[in-house]
């Protein structure tokens, strides 16, 4: 197993163990409190007798949880935005096979694709069929970016993606849709006619019937260009929203003729079984089959698991942002922990006298510890719950502010707030851990108090720890009694 697979698994296992420990501890405290209701009563009433202070303490305690929760939900939102963007850009395409000449992942704009024989497509399709690959669509296409000019206006664009599809193979990749929602089959286009997506329509100020000049080879002295008529405007949706590019969409054979690509394509797109989001689970297996097909047919082509790669990038990026927020919040979380220790120590220290009396009249150390930990549990649960809500609110504000300050990089990209409920559970658990650790340490300290010093409110001797020093134990032992003897049976 690769280390990058092991780390998340270990984290999940660790998180699971931690959650189980917290639940177990909470239940244990609840059980012990239930067995000694007077102890539970004392714990609950000690909290409720000073409601304003309770609110203050919870307010302080919840800071850590709020920071963790807000960091996680910001990460969730970014992941949602970027992951969603992948699905919008690629739609049903899970893999593609092409010969890339430059550009691609990590560089702006779509990759530049070299021409490949059209026979590549049936060879790949047939091989996938023979292997019964988890594929529901394989289709050839011709995609080229080029300058386009609207001959019916003065608008032009230096880069518009001209795409040729063969509708016979496009079933799995979804239809083109007109603005009124009706399907726009390529077969309804006449010769030298094309659809234009909304984005291109805006850039080129195009209407139906306009003429567009496609300049596909500006290096030629005579100029390589074609003129097409706009047969309709289609929605920026599905394959018409490929890479969020302005597009001109036409029948493959028309595109091949117009762009001097007869007998050539430059990409074979593959859609896996399952919908736009589910298909990616088959990517590894399908790309293995595609690679075998490419090798067997000796094709100088590259198989790209485009959707899986982009999703991984999106998740890694959002995780990095999440970690930055967590790191920035780590100092506050640490300060919060120190605050909790001080506050809880002060709260319990105020009651040293009554704790000493309780011990004097027969409350055991472990009952006292249960009482103090029960108070801590109540503080922890309240502060973790409030912290999660506060974190949600804080995360929402940050995302909102981000959206106002930094407009979305792409038209149509929505910076919407989103969170994964698991993140809230993680934040709640982390908040509980912080409180339990700090409260537990303080509770353990006070459960071992010296009874007389507590009742008389005398400070502990410097360097001494409560209850640990038992001077001259030997001199208190009766002659003949073994050391550490547990004592007599009570009359």
């Amino acid at each position, binding site marked *: 197993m690769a280390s990058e697979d092991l780390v998340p698994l270990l984290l999940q296992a660790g998180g699971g163990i931690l959650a189980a420990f917290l639940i177990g501890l909470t239940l244990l405290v609840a059980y012990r409190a239930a067995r000694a209701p007077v102890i539970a009563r*004392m714990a609950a009433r000690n909290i409720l007798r000073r409601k304003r202070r309770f609110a203050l303490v919870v307010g302080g305690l919840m800071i850590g949880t709020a920071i963790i929760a807000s960091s996680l939900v910001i990460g969730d939102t970014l992941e949602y935005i970027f992951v969603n963007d992948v699905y919008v850009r690629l739609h049903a395409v899970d893999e593609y096979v092409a010969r890339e000449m430059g550009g691609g992942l990590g560089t702006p704009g779509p990759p530049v694709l070299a021409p490949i024989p059209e026979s590549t497509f049936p060879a790949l399709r047939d091989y996938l069929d023979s292997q019964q690959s988890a594929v529901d669509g394989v289709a050839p296409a011709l995609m080229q970016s080029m300058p386009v000019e609207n001959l019916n206006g003065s608008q032009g664009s230096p880069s518009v993606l001209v795409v040729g599809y063969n509708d016979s193979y496009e079933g799995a990749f979804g239809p083109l849709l007109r603005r009124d929602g009706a399907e726009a089959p390529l077969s309804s286009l006449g010769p030298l006619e094309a659809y234009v997506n909304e984005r291109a329509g805006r850039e080129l100020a195009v209407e139906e019937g306009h003429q567009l000049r496609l300049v596909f080879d500006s290096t030629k002295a005579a100029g390589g260009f074609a003129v097409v008529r706009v047969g309709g405007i289609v929605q920026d949706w599905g394959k018409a929203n490929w890479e969020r590019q302005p597009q001109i969409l036409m029948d493959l054979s028309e595109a091949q003729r117009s762009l001097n690509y007869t007998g050539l394509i430059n990409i074979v797109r593959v859609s896996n079984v399952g919908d736009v989001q589910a298909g990616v689970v088959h990517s590894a297996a399908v790309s293995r089959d595609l690679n075998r097909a490419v090798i067997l047919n000796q094709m100088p082509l590259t198989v790209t698991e485009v959707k899986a790669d982009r999703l991984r990038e999106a998740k890694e990026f959002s995780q990095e942002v999440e970690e930055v927020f967590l790191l920035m919040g780590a100092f506050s979380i640490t300060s919060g922990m120190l605050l909790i220790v001080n506050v809880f120590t002060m709260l319990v220290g105020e009651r040293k006298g009554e704790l000493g009396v309780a011990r004097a009249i027969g409350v055991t150390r472990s*009952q006292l510890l249960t009482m103090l930990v029960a108070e801590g549990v109540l503080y922890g649960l309240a502060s973790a719950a409030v912290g999660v809500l506060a974190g949600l609110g804080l995360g929402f504000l940050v995302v909102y502010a981000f959206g106002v300050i930094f407009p979305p990089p792409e038209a149509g990209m929505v910076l919407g707030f989103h969170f994964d409920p698991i993140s809230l559970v993680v934040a709640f658990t982390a908040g509980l851990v912080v409180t339990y650790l700090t409260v537990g340490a303080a509770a353990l300290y006070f459960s071992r108090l010296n009874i007389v010093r507590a009742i008389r409110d005398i400070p502990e001797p410097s360097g001494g720890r409560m209850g640990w020093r038992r001077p001259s134990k030997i001199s208190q032992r009766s002659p003949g*009694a073994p050391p550490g003897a547990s004592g007599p049976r009570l009359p």
Partner: protein
Amino acid sequence: MPKAMVRARDAHKVYDSGAVEVHALRGVSLAVAQGEMVAIMGPSGCGKTTLLNCFSGLDDLTSGEVEIEGVPLGTMNDATRTEYRAKRMGFIFQSYNLIPVLSAVENVELPLLVSGHDAREARKRALAMLGLVGLEDRVRHKPAELSAGQQQRVAVARALVNTPAIVWADEPTGNLDSESSDQVMGLLRELNKKNRQTFILVTHDHAIGSRADRILRMVNGQIVDEVRNR
């Protein structure tokens, strides 16, 4: 010959705060028989409360030996001492020290509950004890809602509710008026006689001291005199 409930031999207690060393008990030896009421009297700072704390097991001696019902305190671990305190001892503190979040009856029943008594039985006994100290109409009041004298009587009730074999009392009537003081001492004396409970009282009040079987006078950490009243 009645058995010795409390026996101490050459008990020393030194408080060492680092800068100052205070020798609070200097070789105290005593024996208190079962059913005896002993008053410990002396000037402030002579070690009376220290004696009470150390001989009851609330604090440790620096050296020496204390036996409770024949068993050396030094052989008992914390859990055993705590259990013993819950079942066999009662404490009346100088500042009554009630638990502020519990009502009068809840304070009184606490020793019974922590020693494992049934909740209903504990409540019944607590109410009865509050009746004995004249607080039957204050049972649901919290300490903050009681006067000093009433709080002291609740503390007395708490100390007696588990019918302890030994009661350690530090100024048990310190905050009471003479009538209440007389009532409480009467109750202690009655229990002392009826149940043969042993009482060890620290007091400044000669009237209280004169009601004990014996007075032990302390000066500067030592017992210097003993007066038998009976």
